[in-house]
């Protein structure tokens, strides 16, 4: 049963390792995965520490249902204090790593201190040991995984690791497993690098089991059918996440060339249809997933012939493409390959590189600032591989970009450049233009890990669903089907925060939630699945309360560590100042209205039980059982 999985505390400074059962009380309060990680980080991080100091902490975890028969229960979470935002660092990835860690006997790993030389952790059938990784330092993410498998003599070993970017303390370095599974956001990999932690290898044969095996299997089958019968599962299975691009580029909801336009020029060259014609080589899925949304690709001819990888995603199309004004597939795929190899967040890179191109175009920086690089949009495809390498190794101008938004801006010392740099709480904006979509704008503005869509995005807000359907999904009205409206949008975000907090804590995939379809599993289904697999009883409302607890604890972390309050819950000024320049009539000319945005923010805080500054009230903390944190239950 998943409840038998343990937590291991690894002190990298002393090399001491402590293994403990996970108290049931913590399971009841936080489930596992991201939720329990939030508890561990709040309790174990020394308040006010430098994110790159030994006092920072790294967690790696699987969710409560990880490795079980629940569909797509293979998500993995890694958390820390972010070197980009100083707030809650949190990244989440698919693949097979956390199920293997579960089969090896562990659901949570907690790293403290700093190793005096590079190390990797070997987790296998109840055992945990630190091993020398000096021979792996300097190796990329692909080679590191291969070498560890060879060294330990087992092809079935799953490895999570960092690449050169983390070793060089690129602040948006990430952690990776497999060809492309990425714990991408908030610079978690940079903290691994600061602690000399190169990798974790896991292999286990300790079955998970279920409390009620037949019921669990039957219910998993029912859940699978529910998922694969949706239209979105069909679209994901065929086009992957790129199916979204056809919609958002058509309407005009994307960032092209930083924030200069909202649709791609020459978009015909970067369609999923073009990808299918020339580069598609297969599809794969993550652990236990019935959808299989991931492409495999291969370049068959030309100078890059033989290059292969997994993806691309919608995010890849834009981060290695549209955001930088690049609209040819081979540049995008090559860029994606290099990001996977060096190990950093392509979203953060794209945002800060696109900013550099725009301020170069505007004459705010010149070749003296860039070390001779001519950052002209027309050359972006040609410059991309060079820029990626410069960031990974912190060479020349890449050293400035590697600092991430807040620190790069400060180091550049040109205040006039600030307006063009899009970030929230120090985390770069991603690929969407949220000016016409108040719900999506509020979501990224208030996200507990800085600008990001995977904390709360109600993508179904874009589908113009009947208000009655929206009321069912979002626990009552009033709701408005129109995505440009401000009505009901604060509630959408509040509900989705709870949805995503819970699925990140049970360790299933967000694509099997109401993220994209109202017909996907919800709290009722999760409560039943948890019961059949673990025997733990939760009502749907109790799960909602857990989601609220997790989100509020992350909010408390951000207030304690980074003093984030209402002032940090706004989208960048350009969202209010500049109307959307193009796209369909429904979006063209729109910009966010500050007064209405403030009203949404007030409504959002009230739903959470936070005060006007966005700080959880004493009553809210007591209601959620958070008033005595840090409580050190473990």
């Amino acid at each position: 049963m998943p409840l038998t999985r343990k937590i291991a505390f690894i002190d990298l400074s002393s090399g001491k390792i402590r293994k403990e059962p996970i108290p049931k009380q913590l399971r009841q309060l936080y489930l596992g995965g991201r939720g329990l990680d939030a508890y561990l980080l709040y309790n174990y991080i020394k308040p006010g520490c430098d994110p790159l100091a030994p006092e920072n902490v790294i967690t790696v975890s699987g969710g409560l249902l990880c490795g079980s028969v629940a569909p797509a229960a293979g998500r993995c979470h890694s958390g820390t204090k972010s070197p980009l935002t100083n707030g809650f660092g949190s990244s989440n990835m698919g693949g097979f790593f956390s199920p293997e860690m579960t089969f090896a006997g562990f659901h949570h790993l907690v790293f403290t201190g700093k190793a005096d030389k590079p190390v990797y952790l070997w987790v296998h059938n109840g055992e945990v040991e630190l091993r020398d990784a000096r021979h792996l330092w300097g190796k990329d993410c692909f080679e590191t995984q291969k070498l560890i498998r060879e060294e330990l003599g087992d092809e079935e070993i799953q490895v999570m690791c960092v690449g050169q970017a983390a070793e060089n303390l690129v602040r948006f370095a990430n952690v990776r497993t497999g060809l492309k599974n990425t714990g991408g956001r908030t610079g978690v990999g940079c903290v691994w690098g600061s602690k000399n932690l190169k990798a974790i290898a896991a292999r286990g044969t300790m079955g998970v089991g279920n409390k009620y095996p037949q019921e669990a299997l039957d219910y998993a089958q029912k859940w699978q059918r529910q998922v694969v019968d949706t239209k979105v599962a069909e679209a994901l299975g065929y086009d992957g996440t790129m199916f979204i691009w056809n919609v958002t580029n058509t309407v005009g909801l994307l960032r092209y060339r930083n924030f200069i336009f909202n649709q791609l020029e020459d978009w015909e060259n970067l369609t999923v249809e073009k990808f299918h014609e020339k580069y598609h080589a297969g599809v794969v899925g993550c652990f236990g997933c019935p959808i299989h949304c991931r492409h495999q690709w291969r370049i068959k001819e030309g100078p890059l012939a033989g290059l292969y990888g997994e993806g691309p995603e919608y995010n890849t199309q834009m981060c290695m493409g549209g955001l930088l004004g690049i609209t040819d597939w081979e540049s995008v795929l090559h860029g994606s390959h290099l990001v996977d190899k060096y190990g950093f967040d392509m979203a953060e890179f794209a945002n800060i590189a696109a900013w550099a191109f725009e301020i170069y175009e505007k004459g705010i920086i010149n070749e003296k600032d860039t070390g001779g690089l001519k950052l002209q949009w027309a050359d972006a495809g040609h410059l991309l591989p060079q820029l990626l390498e410069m960031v990974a190794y912190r060479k020349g101008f890449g050293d400035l970009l590697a600092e991430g938004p807040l620190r790069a801006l400060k180091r550049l010392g040109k205040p006039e450049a600030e307006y063009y740099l899009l970030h929230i709480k120090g985390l770069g904006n991603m690929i969407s233009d949220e000016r016409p979509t108040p719900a999506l704008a509020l979501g990224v503005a208030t996200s507990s890990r800085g600008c990001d869509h995977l904390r709360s995005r109600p993508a179904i807000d874009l589908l113009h669903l009947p208000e009655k359907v929206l009321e069912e999904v979002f626990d009552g009205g009033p709701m408005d089907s129109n995505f440009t409206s401000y009505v009901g949008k604060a509630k959408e975000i509040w509900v989705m925060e709870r949805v995503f907090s819970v699925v990140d804590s049970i360790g299933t995939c967000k694509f099997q939630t109401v993220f994209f379809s109202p017909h996907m599993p919800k709290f009722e289904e999760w409560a039943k699945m948890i019961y059949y697999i673990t025997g733990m009883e939760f009502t749907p409302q109790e799960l909602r309360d857990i989601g609220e607890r997790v989100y509020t604890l992350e909010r408390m972390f951000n207030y304690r560590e980074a003093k984030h309050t209402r002032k940090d819950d706004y989208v960048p000024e350009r969202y209010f100042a500049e109307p959307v320049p193009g796209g369909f009539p429904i979006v063209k000319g729109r910009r966010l209205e500050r007064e209405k945005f403030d009203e949404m923010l007030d409504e959002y805080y009230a739903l959470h039980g936070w005060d006007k500054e966005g700080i959880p009230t004493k009553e809210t903390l007591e209601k959620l059982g958070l008033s005595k944190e840090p409580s050190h239950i473990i």
Partner: protein
Amino acid sequence: MAEEQKVRCLNCFVRITVPPKAQKLTCPNCGVEYVMAWRGSQAKIAGPAKK
């Protein structure tokens, strides 16, 4: 006989019937124009028509 294909207009949200193998489509309600793609017999919107 192939099923009649419909897509929803991304601007005004009315359902539009797509003629077989159509490469372009105009919304009869709001007039926005689309480039279409086909996955077998299934129509999908590929992008906005260029003016």
